[in-house]
């Protein structure tokens, strides 16, 4: 019964405790690149709501503002109304295709450098090192008893986590209201309940996901690694342990004793020690590898110390790996990046961006929508004329009040007036004042002679009377009683 594969009645557990990850500090070009990305992304996140942008007296002066209450989205000189939401959809499509482009070219670069989970985990791991010390000290402390020192250090660490988490949650709400006002309101208890709720939820998620879940978010929870795995091909860059060069592993002494018997890997385990997701890159590509390239920095440092060429662990495509294994050389980076797939992604990405910019430049900021009242469709007037009622929705999307004219065409003998006016003295043209940055609803009465087709199309037009004559028009139906009714 006792075969070597028999686990002898010891059922393997169906659940496993998290294996602690205590990444060692490392320095090198990729680490410095990660520092730079972290600085830029965090600065964008925390500082953007505080940038001011003067739009005159009728609009907020916050450069980036999602004004949910008034249904406006401001981004520097661009103002987006709800009916223009396709611009936001376009941005999301660009973001999606941008990720395809990045993934097909440089693999999981998003995961390794720019994903918020990565950036905040990285930040929290620096806090760990600041409070507990580097890897070995962290392991000792984690395995040690609960002494006063451990309690003090854990308390300090969690407090710093909490401050960062709270700051993160607090920065989020600044995008949805005037940041200076909201800050004062928040601390004086005047802010909306949803603001406190949002800060509480985001503080909790940042604290838990950044402080404790960390790599488990990538490994167990995030769909993106699975999708990216499907989007990568043999020409995408991967962080690769070049086993054809490194195996068999052996220490420097062994290699000196038996020249030629060992590869370049000295089995120092530094690549494992620095990994923020706690994997061993030497086992090959795996879902836990976010391609942050810190193992490349670690390995390059060791190779320099033992006097061997860098790049035992390096960015490498599957094609290049096969070529190098067969004794060839890697293709130049330019050729790796410029291939039909990346060019098509880039082409689509730029085309969408250019189309959006073009239509942004072309859009008019005075818009007319006409709705024909259907109950009743027409009203018989006592002098034999027929009246139809319409609701005009005049959108003035400029941040200034405007005076506009509304005229009709193609309906002979007709007269128009609004619910504030009167039929007496009415003609084919009215003038309306529009408030800045708002929708004005006007009930429009149109009376025309009773003799005529039962259904007739005519046009309602609006145009500015204050310098900019551009406007909008709509074709709409005029109804009369059918003959014999």
């Amino acid at each position: 019964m006792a075969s070597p594969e028999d686990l002898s009645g010891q059922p393997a557990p169906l659940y496993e405790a998290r294996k602690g990850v205590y990444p060692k500090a490392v320095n090198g070009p990729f680490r410095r690149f990660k520092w730079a990305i972290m600085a830029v992304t965090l600065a964008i996140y925390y500082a953007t709501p505080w940038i001011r942008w003067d739009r005159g007296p009728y609009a907020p002066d916050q450069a980036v503002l999602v004004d949910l209450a008034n249904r406006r989205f401001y981004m520097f000189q661009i103002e987006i109304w709800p009916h223009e939401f396709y611009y936001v959809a376009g941005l999301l499509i660009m973001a999606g295709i941008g990720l395809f482009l990045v993934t097909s070219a440089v693999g999981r670069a998003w995961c390794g450098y720019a994903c918020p989970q990565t950036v905040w985990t990285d930040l929290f791991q620096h806090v760990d090192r600041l409070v507990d010390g580097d890897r070995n000290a962290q392991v000792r402390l984690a395995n040690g008893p609960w002494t006063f020192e451990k309690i003090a250090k854990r308390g300090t660490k969690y407090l710093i986590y909490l401050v960062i988490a709270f700051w993160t949650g607090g920065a989020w709400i600044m995008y949805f209201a005037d940041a200076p006002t909201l800050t004062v309101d928040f601390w004086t208890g005047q802010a909306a309940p949803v603001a406190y709720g949002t800060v509480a939820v985001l503080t909790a998620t940042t604290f838990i996901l950044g402080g404790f879940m960390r790599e488990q978010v990538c490994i167990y929870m995030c769909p993106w690694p699975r999708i990216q795995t499907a989007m990568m091909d043999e020409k995408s860059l991967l962080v690769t342990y070049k086993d054809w060069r490194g195996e068999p592993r052996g220490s420097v002494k062994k290699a000196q004793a038996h020249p030629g018997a060992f590869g370049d890997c000295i089995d120092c385990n530094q690549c494992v020690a620095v990994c923020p997701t706690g994997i061993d890159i030497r086992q090959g590509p795996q879902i836990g590898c976010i391609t942050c390239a810190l193992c490349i920095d670690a390995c390059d440092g060791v190779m320099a110390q033992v006097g061997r060429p860098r790049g035992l662990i390096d960015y490498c495509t599957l094609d290049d790996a096969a070529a190098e294994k067969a004794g060839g050389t890697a293709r130049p980076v330019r050729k790796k990046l410029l291939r039909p797939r990346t060019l098509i992604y880039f082409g689509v990405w730029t085309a969408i961006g250019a189309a959006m910019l073009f239509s942004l430049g072309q859009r008019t900021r005075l818009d007319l929508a006409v709705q024909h009242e259907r109950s009743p469709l027409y009203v018989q007037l006592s002098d034999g004329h027929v009246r139809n009622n319409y609701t005009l929705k005049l959108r003035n999307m400029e941040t200034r009040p405007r005076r506009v004219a509304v005229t009709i065409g193609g309906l002979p003998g007709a007269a128009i007036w609004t619910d504030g006016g009167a039929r007496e003295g009415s003609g084919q043209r009215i003038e309306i004042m529009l408030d800045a940055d708002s929708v004005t609803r006007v009930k429009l009465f149109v009376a025309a002679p009773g003799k005529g087709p039962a259904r007739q199309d005519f046009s309602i037009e609006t145009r500015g009377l204050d310098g900019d004559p551009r406007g909008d028009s709509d074709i709409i139906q005029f109804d009369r009683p059918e003959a014999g009714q």
Partner: protein
Amino acid sequence: MADLKQRIDEATGTSTVGHEWDGIEELNTPLPRWWLWTFYATIVWGLAYVVLYPAWPMVNRATEGVLGWSSRGDLAKEMAADAKRRAPTVNAIAATALADLPAKPELMQAAVQGGAAAFRVHCVQCHGAGGAGVKNLYPSLTDDDWLWGGDLASIEYTVTHGIRNPDHKATRTSLMPAFGRDGILDAAQIGDVVSFVRTISRQEKASASSARGAALFEANCAVCHGAGGEGGRQVGAPRLTDAIWLYGGDRDSLTATVNQPRNGVMPRWNNRLDPATIKMLSAYVYSLGGGEKGLAPAAEGQGADGQP
């Protein structure tokens, strides 16, 4: 579990759980332990929910839960909150004389909206969703022809006291005689009167019949409908010279009306609605397109300024 044969799978290096079905084995890829704890947490959550909120279906209704929450209670709260929100506007409307409303565009707009809401509850059954009425039954409120007057005060009086309410003194009332049924006019005479009415409404050319009808009209109809058929709003007598006919302007319809008039009725609303609501209803009906300026000078000078 002890008889399960767990072994290391060669291809993956992972232990199997020990189950085997016709040679197919399951690899043991352990779930993270916190996953198990979230599962336990959902059970605790579920138990707490059952205690706090309505949960177990019983014979007549579900258990109530110790918080006493119900969606009906939520609705009642929201309705009360909204009534509180509307209170200042409604009070302001109640405190403003009806004739002064059009001079205060914001208040007028609020009154029209409030009236529209009340109209949808109390008036659409007869007058229709848009106030267009029903031909041969109920008059349109959207046109420029009024039986009892189309200025704000007249509309308010009509809504307040109704038309031909038997139990109400102040109600608007009048009775057109049934000229045919009661034998006041014979059939030929009625035909002549109809000819005359169709002449003054420019539907027929003058004829011998209409000439005879003119004299009959003078004797029987002019007292209410006016000498030229221009109508009389004191008694709700419709104008007979225009293009609007509640019960039809063709020969047959007119003959039927003169034979046996309908004398339509409308309930009074002062015993069901508060004065502010009636005021708002009047403003709404006034705004439908046929509102008359009446005597209120406040309504003048308010042009098409875009303030709805």
